[in-house]
């Protein structure tokens, strides 16, 4: 993901809340400290398909905002 980001492609990593710190430190490690992280509530294992869709819909505004920022 960091390589895509370095090439100027819109990228984001989806992290559940307990993994946000790891996500941020990994982004710094790989030289992309501004790599956007999209936060979703934990846990996301053991969800049924409808619940997965709901989680995905919940982060759509964050995703759209990122794409808009990139276009501007």
């Amino acid at each position: 993901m960091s390589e895509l980001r370095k090439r100027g492609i819109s990228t984001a990593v989806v992290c559940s809340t307990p993994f946000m710190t790891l996500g941020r430190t990994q982004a710094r490690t790989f030289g992309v400290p501004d790599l956007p992280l999209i936060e979703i509530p934990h846990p996301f294992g053991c969800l049924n398909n409808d619940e997965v869709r709901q989680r995905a819909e919940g982060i759509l505004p964050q995703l759209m905002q990122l794409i808009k920022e990139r276009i501007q």
Partner: protein
Amino acid sequence: MTSLNDLLNVPGASVDLDDDFDTVNEYFLERGWGDGLPLIPPTEARIEAMLAWCDRPWEIPIGRMAPRYGEATPLRLAVNAVMAGCQPRYFPLIMLAIEALCEKTFNRYSIQVTTHPCAPLLVFNGPIARELGINSGGNALGPGVKANATIGRAIRLALLNIGGGIPGLGDMATVGSPAKYSYCIAENEAKNPWEPLHVERGFPIDATTVTVIGAECPHNVNDGESQTGEGIMKTIAGTMATTGPNDVYYPRQQPLLILGPEHANTIARTGYSKADAKRFLQQHAWLPLGKFSNENIERLFKVTFKERYANAGPDAPAYAVQNAEDIMIIVAGGIGKHSVYLPTFGGSTCPVTLPLKRRDGQLASTIEEFHLG
């Protein structure tokens, strides 16, 4: 070669503290440097003694340790080896193990950060493992022997302090594992009725090797009644075939079976080669698909093994290991009718074996020869 004094004088490379055990430990543990146990203060003199057994430039990384991708230089490794309580002559094996952990196929990143409780197990073979007294006999995975306790701990301290595998930050294990304090064993080659692990993996019998395996804690197999190889292996196969390990969900996995010498002897005496034993175990280590939850069947088995389970009923076999040759077997331990089985992180890690070589590229047969070579 740059002097130790020059390396330690680089800004940030060292800290000035009173040479007092409690002061040093308080300072280190407050900053999260370590495994929670008391640390031997890494003074310049102790580091220098460790580095006397290093055949490489002290500041050139052997590899980068995930998830921080910190540079594992001999200097940093020596500091961690001192803190772990290692004898300096263990140091060549510590550097070798770190090199193996950094091999791409081992999957250093995922092994460190996963919620799964795997830890790199070090399996040593060969003459230098015996010379250094790495325990391969009774209690080989237990306490009481300095080499096992401190070599394994040095690796863990490096994973924490250099790799950044810090609980909750770079190590996300749900429950974790006591194997993350130290996980180090040698094979009991004298009691092995077959070829030892390093020979099976393509190295000469007189090579000293380390094999790193991303393994769970050992699960015991008690069988004091069976008098044949088939009987013992039937018991072992039952231990292998359970619903929880990562391995069962992957098309490829390389778990480790540590046979106690008495079990190994009975299996060999019945006429089984090591390859025969692996075939028997692969064929018998299965459980009915119906033992798994419907969600696991639908979302894992029918995805990973699409063709096999597309129309499978609850009696279809789910194998602990898919390929017989992927079962790794060593012999270790002392008296008693016990063996242990170690499932792994699963299909995304491969064990790595490396030999200890001298500077001239030849195999080292004694630790002194490595030192001088």
